[in-house]
């Protein structure tokens, strides 16, 4: 039975003590008269438009009560256009295809910019073995929760003298605490048994030491959840040999990126793992682990991008918007297609195009 990730709905109110605890849902107007909820849609570039097109088709076929406000954003723009940010602030939920960041030259990553601007401090990837998808490891069911705003990705670099460059990694108590709280709250609300903090505090004593301190403090408030710590290099070794020992993992920014991609890889690939970026007020759902194939030209030309990850992420989004039955139907349809194994995209060993996979999913919606 698949787990249902409950996202940020309840957490906002559990954090702020001034609101009354009896309110458990984000006060979003309910569609009592059948009005659809607006969701910002950013197709992006590379395979982005292909996979978001897939989601639009499926949502249409299901008659889901959402409608998309599309915006053009490309990876090599200088900054995200202000109307896009406005739209996300208004709708509170966004679905993103993929933004390819050009390597090495002058443009700061728009993905990172969006996360900082909207303060999406937690990045979630749910890596789970999907029946029907052959992998070397089984019994994988890991949720990687990664701090999304600071750490190594602060973007603070400068050249000291020619030939010597410095980059600053910033860790603050505030951010470490809130990501630890999110991780434990998530584990508690989703009936997860163990939280593992991943770090390198034997070398970076102050920085990762501060992160660990925050995790330990929060752990002491959840005696029912097991807590342990693991050094990142040992962790990656354990992930490839014994992944069943991990449940929820909480990490700072860089390690989280690597661990999430490794975990996604062992569970079937980044083409099928759902995930999202969540903050107090906003949420952006996208392909779980780093869209490594966003810029892959061949996949774009042949239209063989795997839409499964974004479809499962949009199911998470539907749940976040409190349309659980639509979410469940979408989830079930996608899983049925994978279990049947006839229509699989290239990255998981099949040879279907995006369109064929989408057709199969639509056919399987009950």
């Amino acid at each position, binding site marked *: 039975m698949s787990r249902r990730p409950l996202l940020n709905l309840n957490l906002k109110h559990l954090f702020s003590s001034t609101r009354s605890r009896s309110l458990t849902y984000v006060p979003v107007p309910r569609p009592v008269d059948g009005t659809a909820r607006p969701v910002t849609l950013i197709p992006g570039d590379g395979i982005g438009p292909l996979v978001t097109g897939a989601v639009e088709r499926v949502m249409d076929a299901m008659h889901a009560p959402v409608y998309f406000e599309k915006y053009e954003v490309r990876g090599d723009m200088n900054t995200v256009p202000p109307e896009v940010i406005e739209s996300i602030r208004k709708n509170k939920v966004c679905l993103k295809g993929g933004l390819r*960041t*050009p*390597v*090495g*030259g*002058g443009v*700061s*990553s728009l993905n*990172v910019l969006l996360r900082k601007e909207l303060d999406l401090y937690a990045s979630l990837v749910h890596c789970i073995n999907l029946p029907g998808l052959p992998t*070397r*490891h089984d019994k994988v069911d890991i949720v990687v929760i990664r701090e999304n705003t600071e750490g*190594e*990705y602060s*973007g603070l*670099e400068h*050249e000291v003298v*020619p*030939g*010597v*460059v*410095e*980059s*600053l*990694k*910033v*860790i*603050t*108590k*505030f951010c470490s605490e809130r990501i630890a709280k999110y991780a434990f709250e998530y584990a508690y609300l989703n009936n997860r048994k163990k939280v593992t903090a991943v770090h*390198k505090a034997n*070398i*970076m*004593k*102050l*920085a990762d*030491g*501060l992160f660990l301190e925050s995790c330990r403090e929060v752990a002491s408030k959840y005696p029912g959840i097991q807590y342990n710590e693991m050094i*990142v*290099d*040992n962790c*990656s*070794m354990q*992930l*490839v*040999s014994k992944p069943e020992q991990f449940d929820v993992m909480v990490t700072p920014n*860089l*390690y989280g*990126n*690597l661990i*999430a*991609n*490794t975990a*996604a*890889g*062992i569970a079937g*690939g*980044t083409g099928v793992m759902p995930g999202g970026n969540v903050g107090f007020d906003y949420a952006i759902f996208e392909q779980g*682990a*780093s869209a*490594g194939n966003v810029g892959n030209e061949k996949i774009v030309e042949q239209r063989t991008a795997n839409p499964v990850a974004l479809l499962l992420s949009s199911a998470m989004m539907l749940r976040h918007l409190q349309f659980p039955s639509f979410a469940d139907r979408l989830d079930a349809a996608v899983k049925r297609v994978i279990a049947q194994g006839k229509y699989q995209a290239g990255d998981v060993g099949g040879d279907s195009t995006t369109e064929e996979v989408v057709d199969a999913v639509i056919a399987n919606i009950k």
Partner: protein
Amino acid sequence: MASQIVRRIARSSRSKYASLGNPSLLDRSCSQSAASNSNLIRATLFPGDGIGPEIAESVKQVFKVAEVPIEWEEHYVGKEVDPRTQSFLTWESLESVRRNKVGLKGPMATPIGKGHRSLNLTLRKELNLYANVRPCYSLPGYKTKYDDVDLITIRENTEGEYSGLEHQVVRGVVESVKIITHLASLRVAEYAFHYAKAHGRERVTAVHKANIMQKTDGLFLKCCREVAEKYPEIKYEEEVIDNCCMALVKDPSTFDVLVMPNLYGDIISDLCAGLIGGLGLTPSCNIGEGGIALAEAVHGSAPDIAGKNLANPTALLLSGVSMLHHLNLHEKADQIHDAILKTIAEGKFRTGDLGGKSTTTDFTNAICNHL
């Protein structure tokens, strides 16, 4: 699996007359090659703690049976902090490695506490060990979930994220500085391509995160590209680290030689060790300025099985083999290497961590019998 043994012998015979170390070492070894039969080469041995002494004995025994012309100079970690090195390693030990230019190190447990540097860090800084080379290949006979791993990870060892420069800005805010320099990146890139050429490797992949850390990893990539131009016969690629992690766990056979800065190297080399069966089977060699090579076993000192004759000496033995390659004693190295592979492939004598019940001495004797 026999085909794997054949492939390894073929590849090492290609490199028979090439040196593992710096070009500067070639002069030394040329003058020594005639003499190495009659003279003994002095090498420093650090048995280390925990299971260290037992597996060091294993190595000495195997080398003696194989008649390797090496004379060991043993050094132990002291009980108190030596003020000249600010750690438990004495100045004499470090001088010994500097003199002999070659060494083998067992696992050392860094005592937890303040006021002294970690032992590994001391060695690294004092001997200027700038590259850590870890060949990872699937051992025939020991089955893991990955059968076709055959790659080398070369990691920059002196700077990057592990510079140790951290400070608390205000209460609750900590900064850690990552440094990348032209000099260090160039040095490790040079070594990587030299190694690839010397061992008949076809591709070198630089692993980075330059889409986010544009200046630092950008500088690293620039240096790699500079060096790549001097070796047109070797294919050069670049890969973002998150794609690299994913590709490694899905299909490790797509990689050949990987070169990367410190932190990524740490994580990737341990990931690769995990692919082939863990740190108990992984050899490793640290290359320093002036042609110093310190081979080491990277696993822990396993205090719980120390002294019980249960430890697996494979990692230290394979590191010893890479040390012999560095000294140009290729025949001896291949002999010992094949003996180890054959013993593990047979499966009759295996220590506890490989799933068997043999003791260290049984395993060592089996290897000696295969020589």
